């Protein structure tokens, strides 16, 4: 099947991208119409939502404007867990064509469902993401997110196929094979977690392969928060252009938003996902530009509508219009999550700060883990850093100097004393390509 590209006069587009440029007035009208319809659907079919509306004395008819969304109850992650497995579905099982679930390490996983229309929506938003990254028909896209219950792999896969690209569905793991295929197949773009890509850069170097010599030109990275230092590290180490993609299974999976080539925030595909920023303490809606917790409402999802889902991701809606011309509002890069915050001896610590500190030290790659323990009633924070062949010097003095530099950078950035440990390469556990950053043993 040939997929023709539409002449929009704007670069980095696919026919599906037309929606990205909807005139604001049209977009707001579409959002209101869809919001009313989705709230009606959830009210009809999801008992929990109806109950919460009843408690507030609300019916779908009370939604007269987009601003009225602030009157609706929030949905939180625990709601999904409490209604495991199918309690929040708004479609009969016979209409559900796909189920995904979180890899949840504690208790029951979170289950999400898709009708055929939902899968189509998902495909189109991921296609719009990839098109915005300058990818198109003719590109060879390697999908190194895990395939399976995790939404990353299949989400990126369908989107890349929708784009008309050639998809190489490697899934996660087997770094050497990933690198070999990347080279032999002439892969031009990769989708994976940023930490996994850094791992691939390291392994490629060990194999004597320089990504800069390959056709690889773009990476679409998501599924975990990352920093601008990581972006620089990736771009300098591989010569590619790195894009931040955002999504979460509860809403649809990857494809809720993505950077365009201007890299000035992530466009949220507002025709399907309505964004709000709230004060995480009070729940009050904040104006564009203020930092707070991102709340998303799915405007078109049939099988499992999410009304005002609290993402726990801390960001802001960027005011003004992006130079690319998209009318879709942008969120700032998500550096931290409200539930990521650690309180260590009364001080707020975010894993992203640890990353910033580690990256300040020359030659240090961000495979690390934070281990929290308690000794004599006092919190102890240890940062384990994997030694890579690049960092390794066989003089004990040089290793101690590296240790002291890491220690100094962490002390400065965090403002509390932490213990740094140098550990062997590949000794920190990874799952789905996502590094497990924090181990909290304080209450054991």
């Amino acid at each position: 099947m040939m997929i023709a590209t539409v002449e929009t006069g704007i670069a980095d587009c696919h026919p599906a991208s037309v929606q990205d440029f909807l005139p604001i007035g049209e977009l707001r009208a579409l959002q209101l119409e869809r919001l009313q319809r989705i709230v009606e659907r959830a009210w009809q079919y999801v008992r929990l939502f109806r109950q919460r509306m009843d408690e507030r004395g609300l019916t779908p008819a009370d939604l007269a404007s987009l601003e009225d969304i602030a009157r609706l109850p929030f949905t939180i992650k625990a709601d999904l867990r409490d209604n495991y497995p199918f309690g929040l579905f708004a479609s009969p099982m016979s209409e559900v064509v796909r189920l995904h679930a979180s890899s949840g390490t504690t208790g029951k996983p979170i289950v999400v469902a898709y009708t055929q229309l939902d899968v189509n929506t998902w495909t189109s938003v991921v296609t719009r993401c990839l098109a915005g990254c300058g990818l198109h028909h003719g590109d060879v896209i390697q999908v190194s997110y895990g395939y399976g219950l995790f939404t990353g792999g299949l989400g990126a896969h369908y989107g890349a196929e929708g784009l008309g690209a050639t998809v190489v569905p490697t899934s996660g793991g087997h770094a050497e094979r990933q690198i070999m295929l990347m080279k032999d197949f002439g892969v031009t773009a990769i989708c994976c977690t940023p930490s996994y890509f850094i791992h691939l850069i390291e392994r490629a170097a060990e194999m004597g392969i320089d990504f800069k010599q390959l056709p690889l030109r773009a990476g679409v990275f998501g599924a975990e928060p990352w920093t601008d230092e990581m972006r620089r590290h990736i771009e300098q180490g591989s010569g590619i252009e790195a894009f931040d993609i955002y999504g979460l299974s509860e809403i649809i999976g990857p494809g809720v938003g993505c950077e365009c080539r201007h890299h000035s925030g992530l466009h949220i595909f507002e025709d399907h996902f309505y964004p709000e920023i709230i004060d995480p303490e009070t729940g009050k809606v904040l104006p564009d530009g203020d930092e707070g917790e991102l709340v998303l409402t799915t405007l078109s999802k049939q099988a499992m509508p999410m009304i005002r889902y609290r993402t726990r991701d801390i960001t802001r809606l960027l005011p003004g219009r992006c130079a690319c011309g998209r009318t879709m509002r942008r969120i700032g890069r998500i550096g931290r999550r409200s539930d990521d915050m650690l309180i260590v001896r009364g001080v707020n610590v975010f894993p992203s700060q640890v990353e910033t500190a580690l990256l300040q030290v020359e030659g240090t790659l961000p495979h690390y883990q934070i281990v929290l323990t308690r000794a004599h009633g006092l919190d102890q924070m240890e940062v384990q850093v994997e030694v890579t062949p690049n960092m390794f010097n066989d003089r004990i003095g040089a290793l101690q100097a590296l240790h002291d530099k890491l220690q100094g950078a962490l002390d400065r950035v965090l403002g509390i004393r932490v213990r740094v440990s140098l550990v062997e390469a590949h000794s920190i556990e990874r799952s789905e390509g996502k590094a497990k950053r924090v181990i909290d043993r304080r209450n054991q």
Partner: protein
Amino acid sequence: MKIQQLSIFVENKPGHLAAPIRLLAEAGVDLRALFLADAREYGVLRMIVSGCERAAALLTEQGFVARVTEVLAIEVSDHPGGLAGVLAALDATGIDIDYMYAFPCRDAERAVLLFSFADPEAAIEKLQTAGINPLASDELFSL
């Protein structure tokens, strides 16, 4: 003049020394000399082995942090005063030693001193001026 040495980063935990050694054993790598430098939580294993580059590649492939480093080997007579003589000569040149270790030869007459210098090129020059010739790799393995 320079001798290849295999250096491995190991955590100071039970079993962490055995793992790389087992791998080398399975690959038929012959260990000629070995020294473990330890800090509190980790150590560096330094070894003179047959097929150093292959051994390092094998270890790296299996996820160990290993690299080929360079040392100078000096032969001395294995009698009281052998090491003292070389150190006195080194002292006189003012060369800084990063670390050193030694192993006796099989004939029990001679020993080999292994030195790591910050600037090995300069060290070779000064040693030769002082009448000390570091061993070449084939000389070392024939001892």
